[in-house]
C-alpha cells in the first residue's frame, strides 16, 4: 500500500517526525515499510508566468514567439506551438536549467532561428492527468513566480507498506494513522461529518429503496442520495493524492469515492440515479444465465455464488468487486446514489478469484470493512463532492449549481454490530510476553489508543471490547499482541526455556541421510539438488509405458511449465538434465548424486507389481504413523547417481579412463561397504522392468538376504538418444530405507587368530563362454571339501586366439590359510586338487 506522507499528516500531526523515524515506527508496529519514494517530478525552476505578448513566428506558421513575465526581471522570449497560447493567460513556464519528468531537460535553444528561453508546458509534459490539448491555463488568481510543483501538490514522500492480510483496518489512512498515533503517543484527527451541510428536505428514501436478500451476504447497505452534481475534474490536490496512491483521477464524483476509500478503507460506489430502474437497489445472488458488463468493459457471466447489486430488473454491479458499465457516472450525470456496504468476504473472494479481477474494492471487502462506519463514509463522500465542487467553481470560474446532500441516508442494517467483551489477564500477558513489568495501566493506555473500550478494569484483569474495524482481535492472545506490538518487541528479554532435559526420539533415517551423503561424497560423487518435477515426455524418453509402475505419477493442477506437470517417480530425470547441462558447459567427468524423494500415485499403480516394484505401494518411513492412515501419495527416499563415461582425463601418471557399468558397481559397493553392507548381489535385470537401461549392461542390486535395494546400468541407447546425449552415462537408484534396514542388521566379525601367513596359488580355468563370474562364486561357496580356501580373486579373463571355440579362460588367485598353523605345500596342494576336481564336476572347468 502506498501512503502519501502529506496526506497522512491530515490525521496525525507529524511535525518534527522525520520520514526515517516514521518509517522505523511503522516497521516496529508490524506495518513494514518496504520502500520510500520521494516524489519530486520537477527539478529547477518551473514557475507560474503570464503571456504579455505573442507574435507569429516569422518562419513558421504554427509557432508563436511569446513574451512571458515570471515576476523576475525582464520578460522571457519563449517560442510556443500550442494553439491556445495567447496574451493574458497564466501559464506554466519551465525555465532554462529545469527538468521535467522523463528526464526532459530544458535548455536554451533556437527554434527556426528564434531564440527560446524556456518552455510553456502542457499537462502531459508535467506528468499530470487530464491530457487536454495545448498548454496549461492557470487561474488568474495565482501569483506570478509561484512554484508550479507546489501549486499542483506534486512533491510528496510516498511510503510503501507491505500490509499483512489481517490488518484490513490499515487499508485506510485513518487506520494507519491510528496505529502510528498509538506508537508515537500522538492524537488522531478524524474529519468531522457533523460539519457537512445537508439539505434536510432532500430525502434518500424518496429516490431509492434497498432490499437485502440475505443478511449473510450483506450485513449492511447504506445509500445516500445527492443531487445537482457535475462530473467536473477534481481539485489538483485531490488528483495528486490519488495519483500518489497509484490511482487515476477521473472526475470529482469517482475521485471522491476513491479518496474516501483510501482514507477510510471502505470501498464506495456511486450510481447515476437515472440508471437505477424502479428506484430500487437489491442485494441478491446472481440468477442463472445472468451476465453483466463491468466498468472495465468486460462481459461477465454470473453464477449463483456471486452477489450482485441489481435494480428492479437487472444487475448493475458485481457486489464488492466492480460496478456495472450500465450505471456508471457519465458526463451528464446530475443526481447520484452513494453506496457504502458490507459484503460477505468469502463470497467476494470467490467471485474476484473466478474473474481474476482483483480490485481495490475486492481487496478490502475480502479482508473485512468497518461495518459501523458506513454512514460516516457516505456523508464524507458527499461532503467532499460538495466542498470540492465549490472549490473548483471558484478556481475555474464555473457556472454550476451547488450540489445538495440528502439529510438522511437509507440504511439497511438488519443486525447491528455487537462488540464482544474479551478478558485480558495481566498475569497471562506477563507470562506470554516474558515482561514482568507490563501492567494493566500500560495495557489500557495502548488498547484505548487503538480504539478498544475498557469495560472494566482491575490490576489483574481487564475486560475489553474490540473496535468494529479490528476483525483480527478475537481472543485474549490477540489483545496481548496489540499491547506488546505497540509497547515494542525490543523490550522482550532474552531468556531460555526452563525445560526438562531429554529429547524426543528421532527417526533414524534423518541422521542416516546425512551419513550417506557424506560417504557418497567421500567416494567421489558430487551432490546435486534438483527440482523434483517431470513431464509426460520424460516417461516417453525413458521408455516407461502406461502399465509400468513408474508411470503412476502424482499430477499437479497448476505446474509452472508442462515439463513440470508431474512429481518425479524416478530421480533419473533431474540427473540426466544436470548431465546434459554440464556437457553443454564443456565439463567432462560429471559424476553427480542426489538424495531426495520420489513420488508415486498409489491409485494408478498396477494391481500386480513385479517384486522389484512392490515397495512403491508402501508409504515411506518419514511419514509419521498417523498420517500414513490418510489417503495420500507415496513418497520414497532414494539415492541416485549419474556417471559420465568420460571419467578421468589422461594425466602424467595414467591414461584417460572411461566409466561404465563397473564404475557404478564400484561406487555402490564402496558406499554400502562403509555401512558394513558387503555381501551385495548383482543380478541381471529384467529388461521389461527397466526399459531405460541397456539390457546387456544392467542389474538389480540385492542385499545378503536377497532383498531388492535398487537398480544399476548403462542408459539405454534409445533413452540416450531421446535426451540428445552423445554417449550413454551409467546410472543407479537405490531405496535408502532398505539400505537403512540392512545397515541395522546384526553382523558377525572375525575375532580368531589371524597370525598364520596365508599361501596363494594362481590357476587358469577353461570354461564355456557363458559361464558367469557369479557361477564361479557360487561354486566356490558350494565346494564341499573346503577347509583352508579363504578367498578367490579373479585376475584375468581371456577369450580368443589359442582357445577352443566357445571357451574362455578365467584365472583366479586363490588364498589358503588356517588359524591353527602355517600351511605346508602339501596341505595346500591337497585342497587345490580337490577344488579343481570339484570345479571340473560343477562347471566343466579344465585347468589350462
Amino acid at each position, binding site marked *: 500500500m502506498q501512503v502519501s506522507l502529506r496526506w497522512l499528516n491530515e490525521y496525525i500531526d507529524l511535525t518534527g517526525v522525520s520520514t526515517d523515524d516514521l518509517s522505523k515506527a511503522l516497521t516496529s508496529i508490524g506495518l513494514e515499510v518496504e520502500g520510500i519514494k520521494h516524489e519530486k517530478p520537477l527539478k529547477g525552476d518551473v514557475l507560474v508566468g503570464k503571456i504579455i505578448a505573442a507574435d507569429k513566428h516569422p518562419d513558421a506558421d504554427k509557432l508563436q514567439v511569446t513574451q512571458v513575465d515570471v515576476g523576475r526581471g525582464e520578460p522571457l522570449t519563449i517560442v510556443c506551438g500550442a494553439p491556445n497560447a495567447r496574451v493574458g493567460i497564466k501559464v506554466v513556464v519551465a525555465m532554462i536549467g529545469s527538468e521535467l519528468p522523463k528526464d526532459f531537460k530544458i535548455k536554451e535553444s533556437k527554434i527556426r532561428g528564434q531564440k527560446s528561453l524556456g518552455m510553456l508546458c502542457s499537462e502531459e509534459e508535467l506528468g499530470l492527468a487530464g491530457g487536454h490539448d495545448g498548454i496549461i491555463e492557470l487561474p488568474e488568481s495565482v501569483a506570478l513566480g509561484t512554484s508550479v510543483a507546489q501549486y499542483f501538490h506534486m512533491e510528496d514522500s510516498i511510503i510503501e507498506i507491505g500490509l499483512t492480510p489481517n490488518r484490513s483496518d490499515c487499508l485506510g489512512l485513518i487506520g494507519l494513522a491510528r496505529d502510528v498515533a498509538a506508537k508515537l503517543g500522538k492524537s488522531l484527527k478524524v474529519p468531522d461529518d457533523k460539519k457537512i451541510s445537508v439539505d434536510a428536505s432532500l430525502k434518500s428514501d424518496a429516490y431509492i429503496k434497498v432490499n437485502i436478500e440475505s443478511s449473510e451476504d450483506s450485513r449492511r447497505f447504506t445509500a445516500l442520495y445527492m443531487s445537482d452534481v457535475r462530473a467536473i475534474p477534481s481539485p489538483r490536490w485531490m488528483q495528486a493524492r490519488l495519483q500518489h496512491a497509484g490511482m487515476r483521477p477521473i472526475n470529482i464524483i469517482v475521485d471522491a469515492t476513491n479518496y474516501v476509500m483510501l482514507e477510510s478503507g471502505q470501498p464506495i460506489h456511486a450510481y447515476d440515479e437515472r440508471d437505477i430502474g424502479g428506484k430500487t437497489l437489491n442485494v441478491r445472488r446472481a440468477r442463472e444465465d445472468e451476465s453483466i458488463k463491468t466498468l472495465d468493459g468486460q462481459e461477465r457471466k454470473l453464477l449463483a455464488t456471486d452477489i450482485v447489486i441489481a435494480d428492479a430488473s437487472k444487475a448493475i454491479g458485481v457486489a464488492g468487486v466492480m460496478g456495472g458499465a450500465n450505471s456508471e457516472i457519465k458526463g451528464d450525470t446530475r443526481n447520484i446514489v452513494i453506496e457504502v456496504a458490507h459484503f460477505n468476504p468469502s463470497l467476494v473472494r470467490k467471485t474476484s478469484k473466478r474473474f481474476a479481477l482483483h480490485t481495490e474494492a475486492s481487496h478490502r471487502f475480502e479482508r473485512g470493512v468497518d461495518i459501523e462506519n458506513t454512514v460516516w463514509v457516505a456523508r464524507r463522500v458527499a461532503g467532499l463532492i460538495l466542498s470540492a465542487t465549490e472549490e473548483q467553481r471558484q478556481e475555474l470560474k464555473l457556472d454550476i449549481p451547488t450540489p445538495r446532500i440528502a439529510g438522511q441516508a437509507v440504511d439497511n442494517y438488519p443486525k447491528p454490530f455487537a462488540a464482544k467483551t474479551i478478558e485480558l489477564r495481566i498475569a497471562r500477558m506477563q507470562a*506470554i510476553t516474558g515482561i514482568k513489568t507490563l501492567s494493566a495501566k500500560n495495557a489500557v493506555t495502548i488498547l484505548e489508543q487503538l480504539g478498544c473500550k475498557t469495560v472494566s478494569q482491575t490490576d489483574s484483569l481487564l475486560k475489553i471490547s474490540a473496535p468494529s474495524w479490528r476483525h483480527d482481535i478475537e481472543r485474549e492472545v490477540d489483545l496481548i499482541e496489540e499491547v506488546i506490538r505497540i509497547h515494542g518487541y525490543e523490550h522482550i528479554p532474552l531468556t531460555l526455556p526452563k525445560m526438562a532435559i531429554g529429547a524426543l526420539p528421532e527417526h533414524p533415517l534423518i541422521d542416516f541421510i*546425512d551419513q550417506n551423503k557424506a560417504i557418497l561424497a567421500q567416494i567421489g560423487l558430487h551432490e546435486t539438488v*534438483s527440482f523434483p518435477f517431470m513431464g509426460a515426455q520424460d516417461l516417453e524418453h525413458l521408455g516407461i509405458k502406461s502399465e509400468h509402475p513408474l508411470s503412476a505419477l502424482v499430477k499437479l*493442477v497448476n505446474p509452472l511449465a508442462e515439463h513440470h506437470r508431474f512429481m518425479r517417480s524416478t530421480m533419473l530425470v533431474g540427473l540426466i538434465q544436470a548431465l546434459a547441462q554440464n556437457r553443454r558447459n564443456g*565439463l567432462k567427468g560429471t559424476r553427480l548424486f542426489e538424495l531426495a524423494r520420489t513420488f508415486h500415485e498409489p491409485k494408478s499403480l498396477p494391481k500386480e507389481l513385479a517384486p522389484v516394484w512392490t515397495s512403491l505401494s508402501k508409504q515411506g518411513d518419514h511419514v509419521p504413523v498417523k498420517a500414513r492412515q490418510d489417503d495420500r501419495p507415496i513418497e520414497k527416499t532414494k539415492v541416485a547417481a549419474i556417471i559420465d563415461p568420460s571419467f578421468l582425463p589422461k*594425466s602424467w601418471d595414467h591414461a584417460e579412463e572411461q566409466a561404465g557399468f563397473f564404475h557404478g558397481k564400484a561406487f555402490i559397493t564402496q558406499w554400502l561397504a562403509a555401512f558394513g553392507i558387503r555381501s551385495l548381489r548383482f543380478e541381471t535385470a529384467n529388461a521389461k522392468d527397466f526399459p531405460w537401461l541397456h539390457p546387456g549392461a544392467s542389474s538389480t542390486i540385492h542385499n545378503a538376504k536377497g532383498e531388492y535395494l535398487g537398480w544399476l546400468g548403462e542408459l539405454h541407447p534409445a533413452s540416450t538418444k531421446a535426451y540428445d546425449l552423445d554417449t550413454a552415462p551409467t546410472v543407479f537408484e537405490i531405496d535408502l530405507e532398505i539400505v537403512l534396514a540392512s545397515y541395522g542388521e546384526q553382523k558377525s566379525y572375525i575375532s580368531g587368530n589371524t597370525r598364520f601367513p596365508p599361501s596363494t596359488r594362481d590357476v587358469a580355468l577353461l570354461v564355456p563362454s557363458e559361464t558367469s563370474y557369479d557361477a564361479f562364486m557360487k561354486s566356490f561357496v558350494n565346494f564341499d571339501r573346503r577347509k583352508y580356501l579363504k578367498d578367490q580373486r579373479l585376475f584375468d579373463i581371456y577369450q580368443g586366439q589359442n582357445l577352443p571355440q566357445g571357451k574362455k579362460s578365467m584365472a583366479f588367485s586363490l588364498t589358503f590359510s588356517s588359524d591353527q598353523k602355517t600351511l605346508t605345500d602339501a596341505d595346500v596342494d591337497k585342497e587345490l586338487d580337490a577344488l579343481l576336481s570339484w570345479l571340473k564336476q560343477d562347471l566343466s572347468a579344465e585347468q589350462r
Partner: protein
Amino acid sequence: MSQLEICLKQIEAIKGQFQADSASSKAQLSIKVVEDLRIKYLGRKGLVTSLMESLKTLSKEEKPAAGKVINELRQGVEAGLESLKVEADASALDASLSQYKLDISLPTQNLQGSLHPVTLMRRVMLTEFRKLGFTVYDGPEIDLDFYNFEALNFKEDHPARDMQDTFFVADRVATILRTHTSNIQIHAMMHEKAPMRVVAPGRTYRCDSDITHTPMFHQIEGFVVDKNISMGDMKGIVDRFLKQIFGQDLSIRLRPSFFPFVEPGAEFDLQCVKCRGAGCRICKATGWLEIGGLGMIHPNVFEKLGMDSEEYTGFAFGFGIDRIAMLRYGLADLRQLFEGDQQFLSQFPIQP
C-alpha cells in the same frame, strides 16, 4: 739390524703406508675403494697378512713382542677400514639419494566428491539445534490441506492463503505440495507429548519462479511446547542459534508480523553478516537481514489438536535454509543452487 728390528721397521712402514692410503682414498671414497684397501692389507696376500709370514723368521723370544705389534697394526687397520667403510656407506647413500629426486609439484588426481551447500548448512543447523536439546522431525512433502493450512489456523477462503502460492495435486481432495515446513508442527504434535523441542528441515514448494524465488526451496521449522514458554524464551533460542552460526557479535531484532498459526507473530532480522550491522550492499544499507518468521503458537492450533491451550504455550519459528547458505557461503545467484552445475558444486567441502 736384527730380524726384529727389520720386522718392526716393516710394520712401521706398513702402518705409515696405510695412513697414507687411507688419507688418499678419501678423495674418491667408495665401497670398492675400501674393499680394495682391505684386500691390499688384510687379504690373503695382503701386506698385514704377509707380515705374519715374516714372523717365522723371528726367534722364539722375539715372536711375542713382534706378534703383539703386528696384532696392534691389524686392529688399527681394521678400525681404519671400518671407519672408512662407514664413511663410504654414508657417501654411497648420499649419492643414491641425490640420484632419486621427485618433482613433488606434480599433481595427483583424486576422486574427491562434494556436498551441496544446502546440505552443509542443514548439517550445521541441525548440530546446533541438537545441542540445544531439539529433536529432528520429518514428514511428507505432499500433504493434505489439513496439515498445511487448516490445522495451522488458515481459515478457508481467507486472503492469508494468498500469502503462499500453492501447488495443488490433481485428482485428489485437498492435497497440495507443502508450502512450508510448518506442517511438521501438526504432524509432530499429533504424535508426541509435550514437552517438545523439535526442528524439521525439508523441501517446500510454491508456484513462483524469479531471481529470488524457486518453485522448490528449503526451509527449517522449529518449535517448542511446554508449560510457561514465553516470548523471551523464543527470542533467546533464536538469538542463541543465530549467534552460534554467524558469530557472537551479531544481535537479532523482532518486528511484529502476521502468520495465522502464531499470535503474537513476528519476523526476525539478524544484523548483517557481511558488514556486522554497519550497512552495506547485502543489507541494502539497513544493517539488518530478514531471516524468517516466528511467534507464539496460536491457541487455535493447540485446540484444533485437542491440546489444552491454557496449560501449554509454545513458540514456532521458520526460515529459509537456501538464503542462509547463500549468506554463509557468499553466493550471489539462488537459482545456481538447483542447476546441477558440477563446476559450481565441486568447490564445496564434505565437512561444513
